[in-house]
């Protein structure tokens, strides 16, 4: 009986990976626990062990293959004396009978968590000159480049956090920085968020420019007193005499299937605090340009990244020093019928909805706020004055959401222009469930955005 070996999911958000290296060859006998291959995920290179025993009958995916989807058969194990060819064709032919291979794959199709590549914006308001050379880069690479460039530019900039140095970053954002800058400037901390956040605030008081990486912002709740009471308020409490130039960054919001304590969007929390600047980029170019601005900013900056966006590729300008200013929204798509305002991963749903709405003859203008504090009210109001309708999209909870605030602001400042109430599409008012189907429903969906747009346009 042949056994298929399937490409395993090795992280909560992994949808595909690179089969870096086979450590067995056809004809080898393997037993449970033997290392079959090295697989490179978006986070790390992992060894992949055999669960079943048998003889490697056929290797189906060559070493070095990139973009191998989770659950793709990568090899077939056969039994002693079994006809390899027959076994392989049998195994390859019928998926149903094949025993599950080693790591169970996610039961939910990838699309639940990973909307397709972003649509090209119809209109761009790029912060770089026309004709600038562009290269495709992931958000992950863009963030790393931003840090490397700023650390090169300014000796007082250093990175501190859990697993940022020797491990090369829990999400590989700091990959290579230890080699480039050394252990003095890329500092592995113990697991002690409250402590190292406070220590970094002190270092900023002492004249350094710390970048604090939280492995995820869920863990920053341990440190939120230092972020708000010590970092955000000092300039004011000191009458302007001294402040706290610091960046707190890391992934924020839901990843995939990590449940309630690891899936939370803090955008609205931090956006409430005077003294903080709050950045939540969507694209790689904004991730880069905004992170560089954040590191140079003389104030404490909350920089909210997203694990699912890390591996997403965008066009990034090839410039020596590319920065994006705070407080300036980006219009990704121009339209006349409705304004969709979003930020961060919410943009994925906003743009996807806009695409589908276009097919139905509804023209949506899509605005990416990029920074929540300062917030570009002007761009939103100008757009609403044109479209007379607005839908907001975010992954966070509905009570006290950024969308609530925008609704109030639009009501106050553009009431006479509105032809419909502003609708807020948000995550559901529940802790994040684990079950795949429930998680999908807990998050904001493209369908909800489309429904909201139809409601405000009375279609």
């Amino acid at each position, binding site marked *: 009986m042949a056994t298929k070996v399937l490409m395993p999911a090795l992280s909560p958000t992994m949808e595909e990976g690179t089969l870096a290296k086979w450590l067995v060859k056809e004809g080898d006998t393997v037993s449970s626990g033997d290392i079959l291959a090295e697989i490179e995920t978006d986070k790390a290179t992992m060894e992949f062990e055999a669960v079943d025993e048998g003889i490697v009958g056929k290797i189906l995916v060559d070493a070095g293959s990139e973009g191998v989807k989770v659950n793709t058969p990568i090899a077939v194990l056969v039994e002693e004396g079994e006809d390899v060819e027959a076994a392989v064709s049998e195994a390859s032919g019928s998926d149903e009978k094949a025993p599950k291979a080693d790591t169970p794959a996610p039961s939910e199709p990838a699309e639940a968590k990973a909307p397709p590549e972003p649509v090209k914006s119809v209109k761009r308001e790029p912060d770089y000159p026309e004709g600038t050379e562009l290269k495709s880069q992931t958000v992950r690479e863009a963030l790393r480049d931003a840090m490397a460039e700023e650390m090169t530019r300014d000796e007082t900039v250093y990175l501190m956090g859990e697993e940022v140095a020797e491990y090369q970053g829990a999400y590989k954002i700091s990959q290579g920085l230890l080699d480039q800058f050394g252990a003095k400037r890329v500092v592995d901390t113990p697991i002690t968020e409250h402590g190292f956040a406070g220590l970094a605030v002190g270092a900023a008081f002492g004249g350094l420019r710390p970048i604090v990486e939280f492995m995820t912002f869920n863990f920053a709740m341990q440190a939120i007193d230092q972020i708000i009471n010590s970092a955000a308020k000092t300039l004011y409490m000191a009458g302007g005499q001294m*402040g706290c130039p610091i960046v707190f960054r890391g992934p924020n919001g839901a990843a995939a299937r990590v449940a309630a304590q690891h899936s939370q969007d803090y955008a609205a929390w931090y956006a409430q605090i005077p003294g903080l600047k709050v950045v939540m980029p969507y694209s790689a170019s904004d991730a880069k340009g905004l992170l560089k601005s954040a590191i140079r900013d003389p104030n404490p900056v909350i920089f909210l990244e997203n694990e699912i966006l890390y591996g997403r590729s965008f066009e990034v300008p090839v410039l020596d020093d590319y920065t994006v200013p705070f407080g300036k929204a980006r219009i990704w798509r121009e339209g006349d019928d409705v304004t969709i305002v979003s930020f961060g991963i919410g943009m994925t749903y906003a743009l996807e909805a806009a695409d589908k709405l276009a097919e139905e003859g509804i023209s949506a203008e899509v605005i990416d706020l990029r920074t929540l504090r300062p917030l570009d009210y002007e761009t939103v109001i100008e757009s609403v004055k044109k479209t007379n309708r607005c839908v907001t999209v975010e992954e966070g909870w509905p009570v006290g959401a950024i969308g609530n605030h925008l609704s109030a602001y639009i009501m106050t400042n553009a009431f006479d222009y509105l032809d419909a109430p502003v609708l807020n599409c948000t995550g559901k008012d529940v802790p994040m469930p684990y079950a795949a189907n429930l998680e999908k429903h807990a998050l904001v969906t493209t369908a909800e955005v489309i429904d909201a747009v139809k409601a405000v346009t009375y279609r």
Partner: protein
Amino acid sequence: MAARRTTTKKPNVSKEELLGYYRDMLLIRRFEEKAGQLYGMGLIGGFCHLYIGQEAVVVGLEAAAEEGDKRVTSYRDHGHMLACGMDPKGVMAELTGREGGYSKGKGGSMHMFSKEKHFYGGHGIVGAQVPIGAGLAFSDKYRGDDRVTFTYFGDGAANQGQVYETYNMAELWDLPVIFVIENNQYAMGTSVARSTKSPSLWERGAAYGIPGEEVDGMDVLAVKEAGERAVAQCREGKGPYILEVKTYRYRGHSMSDPAKYRTREEVQKMREERDCIESVRQLLLTGNHATEDELKAIDKEIKDVVNEAAEFSKESPEPALEELWTDIYADVAPQNA
């Protein structure tokens, strides 16, 4: 490693030094008495935590500090600011919430800073200044400056988790930070005995490999001597040091504290038998370093300084309403170091 030391004989100390300590401690006491008075008159509002009784701690440690060393403390901070040379007028005017205060009236009693004097606050959240102090030390080490940071906190803060997170990192990275536990025996109304069973607070550092000692905080000379040991260790790059300074506050935790948790006799006994200012006064007189008249002249001089500060704090105008909207964000990088 960790050693308990007690000062048995008085170290040699010059007349000038003794007079300096006397003057500095007296300034804090008179300043605090005046602050209490202004509070009673409604000129100072909110929380106001007086340092009366604890003066020897900060004066002794400042005597061990050098130019460029840093300090950070909790909300019981007036003494620390005066001891590091901040202007009593600016401190008092901050207490009254006036434009002439160190924070233009926007910080208040618990939140004041002076870059010039390397005083980094004034922190209102119990224990929050402890990692901040280690971070200041981190910045010095990063730059290769051989400065040390005095990080003051109370026996109450000593039970905060972030203190131990900080101990761990400070020792791990050999940070030049001196943790000064001002053990005044009551965390607000809870005595040390009612908040922990551990026999002493400084010994907790041993779990992280940090040496330390207990110090008689009513004896300014003992504090100074211990401070010098701590500074030497830090300055040599050997990492942090803990001083648990046993002290006593005569006044309530804050102005509204009825102090039912201790007897009047207990306070009276400390005042009469252990007062840090009185003991230096006696040293000055018995050692023939100063006459009663000379000390009276100093008393008068201090009183004038404090009165002048009080007058300034009343005359300085309230901040302009526009100040509400300033200093929320910096436009240019602050020169913090």
